[in-house]
């Protein structure tokens, strides 16, 4: 079991209805996090971010864990901060959102 901090910006903030949250994961992969978020907010969350067939980010959106690029098989570590955002756009200030 690990716990990560998810931070949502732009369209992901709209989909989640919040700016961020702590999430506990049984499996420590980015794919497991997306499954969890699909359950919480509907599959439109993952569909907005990823091409399900290839696992690649869709046009103009990205998720980063402490600045690292992610794909579904990427391992996450306890305490990671995963940011969902429009690529080339904001934002930061994650301390203020939780």
């Amino acid at each position, binding site marked *: 079991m690990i716990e990560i901090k998810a931070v949502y910006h732009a369209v992901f903030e709209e989909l989640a209805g919040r700016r961020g949250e702590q999430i506990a994961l049984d499996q420590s992969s980015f794919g497991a996090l997306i499954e969890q978020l699909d359950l919480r907010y509907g599959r439109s969350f993952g569909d907005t971010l990823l*091409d399900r067939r290839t696992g690649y*980010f869709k*046009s*103009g959106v990205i998720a980063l864990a402490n600045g690292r690029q992610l794909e579904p098989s990427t391992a996450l570590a306890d305490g990671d901060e995963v940011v969902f955002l429009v*690529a080339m*756009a*904001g*934002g*930061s*200030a994650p301390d203020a959102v939780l």
Partner: protein
Amino acid sequence: MFGFGDLLRVDLSTETIRREAIPLEMRRRYLGGGGINGRLLWEHFLDVDPKTDPRGPDNVLIVGLGPLGGTPFGFGSKTKFTFKSPAYGLFGDSVSGAGFGPAMRWAGFDHLVVTGKATHPVYLWIDDGRVELRDARHLWGKNALEAEHVIKRELYDEEVHTALIGRAGENLVGYASITVGGHRAAGRSGGGCVMGSKNLKALVARGRTGLPVADAAAFLAAMDEVQRRIDKLPVVIDNWRRLGTLRSVDFYDLIHCNAYKNGQLSAMPKEANAKLNGAAYVKDLIGHAVSCSPGCSTACSAWQRIRGFESAAAKHFAGEQGPKPEYLTVASLGVGTDVRDLPAVIHLNRLCFDYGLDLVEMGNGISFLMECWEKGIISAADLESWLGEPANLDWGNWEVAAKVIEAVGNQSNELGRMLKDNVVGAARRLEDRTGQAALKYVNYGKAGATFSEDPRSFPGWACNMAVASRGADHLKGFAPVEKTGRKDISTAWFGHPEAGELHGVALKGALSARAENVNCATNAAGVCTFIPTRDSLIFGHDLLAAGVSALSGISFSEDDLYNIGERICNMEKAFNSRLGLRRSDDALCDRWMNVPAPDGPGKGMKVADWLVQVLDEYYAHKGWDKATGLQRRAKLVELGLDDVADVLAAENALVD
């Protein structure tokens, strides 16, 4: 000819003005904008020694706007200025929005070639088909914003479009820019210096002739298709319309490529970011959205008026109006210098517009001075002797930054003269003066400053900067495939996803090589690079090809445009090869090459570790020789540039 205008030649020495048609064959091979500019530059320097002093009368200023510029196609209008660069001593060019290029086209001219030197300050007045040189002695000594105001008043027309220089250009500062429309700039490479060296204060145009369209229905259909594809990316485009390039401030902190404090770190502290990011601008400063040039349907810029309460420094600039700062503005004048005050950054930006100074070189110069102050290379006594009063170059000191800009623009003291040519030159002069090593604190490539982005953990970005035909430029090979992790674009372009890895090395040379060709074609078509590069799978060059074909009645395919782009890149490369540039020149400064990235996911990476691999791949994709970096005859012949190959061969600058 439908969709295309003529070429205007102006010789300032003889005061002759000539109008010429542009041959159809030249259109097919170079299209327009930077393409035809590049060809005209090449031909000029067949008669003139390419090693000529770029500040001398033998240099040339070429202005061009491609066929979709000045039309409502939807991707704006980007005018190219081309010349031999006084800042780098190499190929030089710069791109600007605003209305001068479109007005020139509406007056019937797509390209302008200015040669010689006027006996006294003049400006060029293009009023539809009537063109004349007018006395500008009363404008000499005025900065750009005032000079533009005077010109509009004396022409009794607030709607004329200008491209002019401030005092920096008059004083032959190597990186003097051309201020266009008072709110945009052809910033890089020193076009303003070339104008100043010719006693050419301004270019002014009013165009009411319009542009004949070959197939209006097809052109409208092409415009509709642009809008349809924009509508496919609502998340991206809405964000782009709201923030424009400013949105990169905090994204770049997340991925660690902001060159904070002259590149000593690769991300700002959160409290600094919060003062400079897009959210801060939208919260306190944004007025109304504007497009920077005619024909743009996304309008990523804005207009603001500082009211005086937005920040600690804002009261000093209350009432100042101007365009929204770009990411480049904030990076150059805020991130690199640690000026944590957006109104102060906007004020410094306005000073650069007014004096006519390239933000990249000027901002890098200020950051460099601040690091030299931190390291004890510049003393309090030095600074007081330069400025005539006690001062400090502490990080974030916007007041001293303003004094540096004024000193450079006015060339009024030793500090300004030290920074006259470029930042590399300033470091060498400082080393001579102090006996201490300073060049290692300049971030540059090919004598040009890299703007405040840290490339050490981004091999594609570093390759762009290392190979750029103008000094250390980041835009020639711009493609957000690497930094936004676009493995789908990488797969579409190369059959493999690796170019979409943020910090990976594989395919990054290929990415630079291809993106350069694509971007050259975009400019040759006359439009802004930023929407097409939002997503090259959606905004492919099939859109531009359809628009140009409908406008001109001449069929251009997507492949034709790519070939045109590749031809343009090869012309720029050939120009620099004649000046002696070889593979060893495709490199970056000591900090980027040898000092490991200090933080972030790419911590420990440095350019020297992988540049050889990336360059090998880059040259292979260009069809150039890996050992020397020179072009091969076979590639030039393939592009129909046999005549270029012959010139290079005669000067031992070609591999047969």
